[in-house]
């Protein structure tokens, strides 16, 4: 039986990590020779932990990737914003209807150069999750993104989007205010602007909600992110009328970063520290930062019309047929 949450799946790891913390505390207070004994014990635990980490993370199956991508300990957009950029000024208005806290955005500096950031934002505890609407954006979120894309184009700031959403908000209100139009218009704006754009899928790339911010010059994906046309549970419900067959559907959907790269639908897989981004958020951020700088440098060589043409051709070529 497959695990249902990342905590369940990571149980042996979490227990080892907790054990190590306890032993270290004991060793701190202990005197010789007990101290040496504890230290060799800690070493043994740490070896076991790194073995386990390698065993579990180097052979991450599609379903386990889904669990890790959704892990509530995983770094979210604002964690990366503070680790990668400086001088971020969040701009919240959509100028149309209301504030949507499930998409954040604003200008910041990357390596001293101004860029525009837009990204989905999830919450970690119950209050935060509600505040962020579980990372499910309403039309207002996409309309705020459109506004920021336009501003970026006006002031020649490259755009960086962070993708981390289970889906766009499916509620009655969102439907009433045109969630489908907002997503389509956001994508359209990403094809209209002439500054380079980079999207990074850092967690869940959930169908329309994700592509609405991901029609970019370059699309990068973290090693344990997922990118899918439908959540595996939803797919299983349609295919076999059994939502609990999510693990099988996850395999069928080929929703991992390596599969997306193989299909030619993303440009690069950004590696994560051993054991996932949540084990070392700063290292994960450093790896994203390196990739962003490199791609921005490459894209800086293109003229505005070349930027547009490249983006068009890139998405135009997607599809398999005979």
């Amino acid at each position, binding site marked *: 039986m497959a695990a249902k949450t990342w905590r369940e799946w990571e149980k042996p790891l979490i227990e080892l990590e907790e054990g190590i913390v306890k032993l270290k505390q004991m060793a701190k207070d202990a005197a010789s020779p007990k101290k040496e004994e504890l230290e060799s014990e800690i070493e043994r635990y740490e070896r076991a932990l790194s073995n386990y980490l390698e065993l579990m993370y180097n052979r991450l199956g599609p379903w386990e990737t889904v669990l890790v991508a959704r892990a509530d300990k995983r770094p979210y957009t604002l964690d990366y914003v503070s680790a990668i950029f400086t001088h971020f000024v969040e701009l919240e208005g959509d100028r149309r209807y209301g504030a949507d806290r499930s998409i954040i955005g604003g200008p910041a500096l990357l390596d001293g150069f101004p860029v525009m950031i837009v990204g989905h934002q999830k919450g970690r505890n119950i209050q935060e999750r509600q505040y962020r609407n579980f990372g499910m954006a309403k039309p207002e979120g996409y309309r705020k993104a459109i506004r920021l894309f336009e501003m970026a184009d006006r002031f020649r700031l490259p755009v960086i989007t962070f993708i981390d959403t289970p889906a766009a908000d499916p509620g*009655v209100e969102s439907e009433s205010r045109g969630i489908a139009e907002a997503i389509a218009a956001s994508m359209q704006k990403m094809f209209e602007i002439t500054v380079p754009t980079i999207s990074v899928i850092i967690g869940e790339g959930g169908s329309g909600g994700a592509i609405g911010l991901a029609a970019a010059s370059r699309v990068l994906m973290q090693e344990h992110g997922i990118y899918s046309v439908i959540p595996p549970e939803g797919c299983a419900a349609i295919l076999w009328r059994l939502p609990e067959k999510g693990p099988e559907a996850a395999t069928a*959907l*080929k929703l991992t970063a390596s*599969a997306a790269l193989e299909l030619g639908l993303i440009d690069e897989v950004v590696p994560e520290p051993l054991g996932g981004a949540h084990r070392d958020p700063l290292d994960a951020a450093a790896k994203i930062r390196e990739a962003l700088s490199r791609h921005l440098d490459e894209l800086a060589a293109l003229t505005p019309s070349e930027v547009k043409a490249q983006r068009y051709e890139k998405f*135009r070529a997607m599809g398999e047929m005979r």
Partner: protein
Amino acid sequence: MNKKGSGPSDAFLQCLGCKKILFSVEFKQNLRVCPHCGFHHRLSASERIEITFDPGSFREVDADLRSIDTLEFPDYAAKLAQAEERVDRFDSVVCGEATIMEHPVSVAIGDFAFMGGSMGSVAGEKVARTLERAIDKRMPAIVFTASGGARMQEGLLSLMQMAKTTAAVQRCAETRTPYICVLTDPTTGGVLASYASIADVILAEPQALIAFAGARVSKQAGVGGRVPDDFQSSEFALAHGMIDRVVVRKELRSVLGLLVGLLGGADGR
């Protein structure tokens, strides 16, 4: 008559709206619209072409484009073969060129009968080519949608069709190529959230299902909220400013012809 819009070949049938018994001949003459309650039954792509464009003017292109089961998705190959057999086409979208009231147009028509009109690589490619053909040949584009959304069996490839078709719509806008979209029952999910929602003019047939998310999901998400009776219908979309007009089937041809003429047509640029 179990399936919505699939008519029997017998002399009588039952309206899916008011359940009254109708004469098949009369029903067909009335463009598959119930003469009693006005319910618009679904059309096949061929029926749509026949009642919309100048007689005999439609020339299909890219009819031979076929899906590949790239993901080796469970049962996809069998489902595709079944759909090809039943609908006698290779995909859910039919495209080509035609004239409407003598204006040349580049057209694409979705057919719900082919795997729920779902958009995979081929449907996305045909819509993109239809828009590009309009740009190249300097004529307006008309697209009829009828789709349950993205084709799950093509995974991320089908999600990317949303971006691909949207890119082509943007190119229409930049080249001043008029693009008119007609939403028919149903237009949902990834199709609604891409090329269907950003046309220069968006028309819809009466009472069509127009929805981003499944109705059940939407209503669950709207806990405590009031769900209007006409939620996710053409009339609802019109009332919320998302589309421009709801047009009854027998007037669609003349409204489209008029719009094509007004927005530029073949030599307006």
